């Protein structure tokens, strides 16, 4: 029976936590067949939710991350369904949080102004 998880020393001499895909032995599986390993980075969703946009050039309420990460996460915000959308938003992000703004169209209108848009932010673990 395949070992799905190894915590400690693998036969290869690697030490850490290794979790394999179903059907693969966590002790010997290649990196591509591991769901979790200390070798590859993993996506860390550091924030998600909804933010209320204000009018042109007016920042939304500041959305804080759970802490200051020291690096700036990638923040996606706006109407993602359907895409592409003309109700566009953008995020001005720092290491501890972000403000969201509506983005203008060619005619100077701001279709996203005043709307509530989803956001998500993630980091790549080192």
């Amino acid at each position, binding site marked *: 029976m395949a070992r799905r998880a190894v915590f400690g020393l693998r036969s290869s001499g690697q030490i850490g936590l290794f979790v394999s895909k179903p059907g693969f032995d966590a002790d010997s599986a290649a990196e591509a067949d591991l769901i979790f390993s200390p070798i590859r980075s993993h996506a860390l969703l550091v924030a998600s939710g909804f933010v209320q946009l204000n009018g042109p050039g007016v920042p939304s309420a500041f959305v804080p991350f759970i802490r200051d990460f020291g690096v700036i996460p990638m923040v996606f915000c706006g109407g993602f369904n359907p895409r592409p959308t003309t109700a566009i938003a953008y995020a001005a992000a720092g290491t501890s949080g972000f403000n969201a*703004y509506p983005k203008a169209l060619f005619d100077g209108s701001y279709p996203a102004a005043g709307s509530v848009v989803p956001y998500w932010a993630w980091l790549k673990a080192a």
Partner: protein
Amino acid sequence: MSRRIIMGRSGSVNYGLRVSKAGYDALAAGLDGLLFDSDLIAAKAFAGNTFLTNVNNNLGRSSPQAPAVTTAPHGLSGTFIAAAIARPGALYTGADADRWSGWGSGITGTMVAAVYLDPTKSFATPHYYRQNFSTGALAEGGWTFSWDGTNFYVHNYCSHTLFVRWKAMRVG
């Protein structure tokens, strides 16, 4: 007290690794109560980088519908999903960060489409506009992001470079 981590075997059922949220039992919790489940494929953010695009020099000319296409080798193999955001490129110092490509009798020159209040950190997701004016003129703006097995591609309809930040997730 709920079990937050289960690793190995429980009764007659084999488990790899389950980690639950606080207040949930890792053995009994449904998916919404789990932070990690080895029966599901967790995304690996295995690569990320930045690059600078070309600028669209077709503004106000005869072919605004032909954007500047930037090809950036990603060096990745296998199946992945990539996501990107962009802000005005390092070479861009003005306040107007996104412009339209104008073409036709109804449009001359460039048209301001947006202002990024802080061009050093304001990132927008890919977006693309195309407008048919009543005069029959066309205008396009924004940018798109795509990839194949070798390269990323950015179609840039803006009058400035874009500083693109991307990350790739392996999901299979």
